[in-house]
């Protein structure tokens, strides 16, 4: 990695400049991560008096534990559902906005602000409009004969958290799709239309393939978002229920550690999550390296 051709001399200054960042990183990132790694190899007895080294036993238990396996599959459904819903809607909106000339910026403004809403608030908002007794959506669903109740129905609860998570993420995806669309040279689209391609055909044969880098990038970002940034949505609404049907991995780490006080298991779950983040980061950077020149 380069520096400038010419640099400042200085023996201690660069270390002093880096110190705040490095100290915070060591104390609040590296040390706790090390602790998680360490604790994941230990087991505490019920009173927290004695800890024994158990090797990979905590991990082995997790993968035999039905509730953890359930949490894994819940996370997959939730992440895929959120990503697909949010990206599809965003792509539809972005490609429609992109053909507007005068109203483009007005629509953009109207669509970007949900980014600012905290996941927990997004959860509360959707929890409220889907509230089985006073919510407006269950009322309408009842008219078509569907009894919505996310307090009893796992699939209703899952849909609810997916809606909330996807809603908040639409603005993000929209902005990136719009930027991607605007970077496609107009001349390509003109060439395609001279070649006699209809608007729909142009979209699927020219625009969509050229958007692939954006789409792939967003795919990774959305999966990361759904896996790690949605704690607030779950915690403020379903709290993992009913019957564990929305108990995603990050929520389970918290619940098992803070509520269940099962430190060894929670630490092992942390370690598994870290491995997932590392893999996702590598995927993301591998791909970005091809796109951006560092």
């Amino acid at each position: 990695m380069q520096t400038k051709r010419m640099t400042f001399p200085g023996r201690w200054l660069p270390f002093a400049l880096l110190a705040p960042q490095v100290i915070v990183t060591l104390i609040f990132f590296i040390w706790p991560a090390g602790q998680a790694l360490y604790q994941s190899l230990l087991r505490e007895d019920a009173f927290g008096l004695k800890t024994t080294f158990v090797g990979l036993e905590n991990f082995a238990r997790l993968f035999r534990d039905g509730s953890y396996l359930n949490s894994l599959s819940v996370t997959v459904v939730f992440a895929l559902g959120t990503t697909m819903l949010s990206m599809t809607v965003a792509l539809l909106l972005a490609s429609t906005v992109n053909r507007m000339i005068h109203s483009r910026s007005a629509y953009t403004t109207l669509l970007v602000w949900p980014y600012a809403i905290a996941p927990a608030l997004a959860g509360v908002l959707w929890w409220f409009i889907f509230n089985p007794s006073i919510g407006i959506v269950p009322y309408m669903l009842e008219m078509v004969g569907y009894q919505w109740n996310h307090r009893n129905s796992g699939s209703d609860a899952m849909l609810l958290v997916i809606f909330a998570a996807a809603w908040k993420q639409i603005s993000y995806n929209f902005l990136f799709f719009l930027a991607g669309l605007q970077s496609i040279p107009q001349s390509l689209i003109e060439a395609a239309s001279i070649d006699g391609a209809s608007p729909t055909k142009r979209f699927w044969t020219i625009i969509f393939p050229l958007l692939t880098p954006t789409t792939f990038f967003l795919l990774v970002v959305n999966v990361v978002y759904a896996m790690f940034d949605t704690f607030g949505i779950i915690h403020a609404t379903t709290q993992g229920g009913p019957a564990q049907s929305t108990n995603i991995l990050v929520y389970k780490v918290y619940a098992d550690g803070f509520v269940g006080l099962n430190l060894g298991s929670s630490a092992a779950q942390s370690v598994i999550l870290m491995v997932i983040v590392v893999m996702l980061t590598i995927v993301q950077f591998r791909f970005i390296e091809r796109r951006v020149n560092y």
Partner: protein
Amino acid sequence: MVENRPWANFFAHTVLIIGVALVIFPVYIALVASTQAPGELVRGTLPLLPGHHGIENYTQMWQSGISTANSPSAALMLWNSFVMAMAITVGKLSISLLSAFAIVYFRFRFRMFFFWLIFVTLMLPVEVRIIPTFQVVADLNMLNSFAGLSIPLIASATATFLFRQFFMTIPEEMLEAARVDGAGPLKFFKDILLPLSITNIAALFVIMFIYGWNQYLWPLIITTDPNYTTIVMGIQRMTSEENPQWQLVMAAVVMAALPPVLVILFMQRLFVKGLTETEK
């Protein structure tokens, strides 16, 4: 391109209006709910038009909060959120500017090691190491304090990388001219580098402020003293009552959402720049 098909335009606008309506819908409902009388929301379905109790609900929430939910006044919670968000934002920006400056403008031992150390923070979101981090903060006696709320969150690989990338685009001659002009490292940082980075700092400020304001899990575990309750986590507390007072909760939701939404609306250009560049 000449494409004059009125029905296509009409269709496009329809799609967008439905999209915008769907995006706005939850917030509209919150606005409506926050203006209803206390009893209105228990009696079956929510009305679709605003009621007449808005001022009274917002005033009550602003001044006293919901005592049954152990929730302090919104004024206090908003202030707490503001302090936390500002501390996180200013902290992230300052330490990232300094580290990027060190990495780009100095050659020193272990430079790559430090670079990777900072990089690693990208892979350790607070959600995945929540319990040991909590233990560290507890051991340092930082529970129930603004220091505990902000300092553990101010390390930032993204901001450091963004500034690094930006510094690399500043012409080499800028540093050389400054050195011929007799500027040392700190003078160069203050007189040349900071003023040149001002747009990038502003763009990141918008993103970081929203990040800080919207923190949820961290304040939830770090603070138990209601004096440190932030608005986002306070709302969760109000909804977990047996019978939530929805008109007040929704008033709080609107107040909690307003500051970051306003930041985005008024600084949309900087927001878009910040968002697209931090994610590269």
